[in-house]
């Protein structure tokens, strides 16, 4: 009888594909954060009035704060349904390293939640009179910043999975951790709008991303073991 041990990349792709298929079949969960993002930005525009100078000044902050809030909405679901239906137990009992599965899940979460948000942010940028010169920097900060949100979010989602009222607790715990990303991202877009150099801030964002990508999967793995053990 021939036994076949799947390679690490096979497992990664299989779990990634699984989560993407589930996400795409759960349209509402996919669209709710996106709609929320649109509504929050629109509310600001309605509240501040259609004045180009005012909107231009607050545009980077509004877009980034709305993106942060929208991305926390979907965090709770990252491990919750897997815990409820017993899939998480099967992940933990797999002979493959748990960290591979965790990395695949974080990647799937980013693709499902952040990628649509990035596209939407470019349109919303135009709506709030963000200067042409700041659109590209906005895209760059979102590309560097949103993976950090999924990575750090995964650690806390794993730590709070299965707790009563974990949704609100998770939001309260996670938002302070997003502050460094918020500060450097908004500063980048602000500087770009004013025609100043942005490389320094982008390097900081890149460094935060590398740090999160290195440590967050390990921390998520340990958190899951603690929660289920």
């Amino acid at each position, binding site marked *: *009888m021939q036994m076949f041990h799947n390679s690490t990349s096979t497992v990664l792709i299989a779990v990634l594909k699984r989560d993407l298929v589930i996400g795409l079949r759960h349209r509402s969960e996919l669209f709710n954060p996106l709609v929320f993002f649109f509504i929050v930005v629109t509310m600001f525009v309605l509240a501040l009035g259609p004045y180009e100078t005012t909107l231009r000044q607050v545009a980077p902050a509004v877009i980034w704060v709305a993106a942060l809030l929208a991305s926390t909405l979907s965090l709770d679901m990252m491990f919750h349904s897997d815990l409820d239906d017993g899939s998480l*137990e*099967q992940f933990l009992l797999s002979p*493959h390293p748990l960290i591979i599965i965790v990395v695949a899940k974080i990647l799937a979460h980013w693709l499902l939640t952040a990628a649509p948000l990035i596209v939407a942010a470019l349109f919303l940028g135009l709506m709030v009179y963000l200067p042409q010169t700041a659109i590209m920097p906005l895209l760059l900060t979102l590309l560097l910043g949103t993976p950090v949100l999924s990575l750090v979010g995964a650690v806390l989602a794993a730590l709070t999975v299965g707790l009563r009222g974990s949704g609100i607790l998770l939001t309260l715990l996670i938002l302070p951790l997003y502050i460094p990303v918020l500060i450097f991202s908004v500063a980048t877009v602000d500087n770009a709008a004013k025609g100043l150099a942005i490389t320094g801030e982008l390097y900081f964002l890149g460094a935060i991303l590398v740090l999160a990508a290195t440590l967050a999967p390990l921390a998520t793995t340990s958190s899951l073991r603690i929660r*289920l053990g």
Partner: protein
Amino acid sequence: MEMRETEQQDRVLNSFSANALTCIRNDVVLFSGLGFRLDCGEVLQIQGPNGSGKTSLLRILCGLALPDDGAILWNEKNIHDHRQDYFKEMSYIGHVNGIKMELTALENLTIAGALAVTNQSISLPDILEKMGLAEHENTPARKLSSGQRRRLALARLLITDTRLWILDEPLTSLDDYGRQLMRDMITAHAAGNGITVLATHDPVDIQRHKITMINL
């Protein structure tokens, strides 16, 4: 050829034992000093009233939870020191099925196969057919009945060639045909020198094989 012989010899030597297990939940001692030893082809049935710690014991045995005291040995090695080796040889079907409602029966088996060390000589549609789910290959799990979902969960046992099965109430929701199928599967597993640990209230009528009982 030589490798195959050593592999077979390894197989014959499988053993699963627990020494002086203690489990305390919410300041209540569920069990203490619990021990057993199972060799190839043996079946252990765990019985006890609701809340007596059957599921806790099974979760400890499969390595999901740590016992408050004692050790679990697979082939005389502590399972927590040799996790990967142990997980390659062990299948656990909990009281929740571990299947995704959004995915079809076949997709659920595919992901289970990707996570395990699979037995390549059997095709997934064949397994579904054996479990009586042939017509539901492309049906989302949410449209299956609870008995069919249980069968889908139990189908995971057939995609691998694990030597140790740990089953939590495997007969729940199953109809008479499903129950007989499960008994046949356990009999075949035991005949192939596999070890089974199961928690169930129903009698497990498996002839010609030694069944050890533990009452919690």
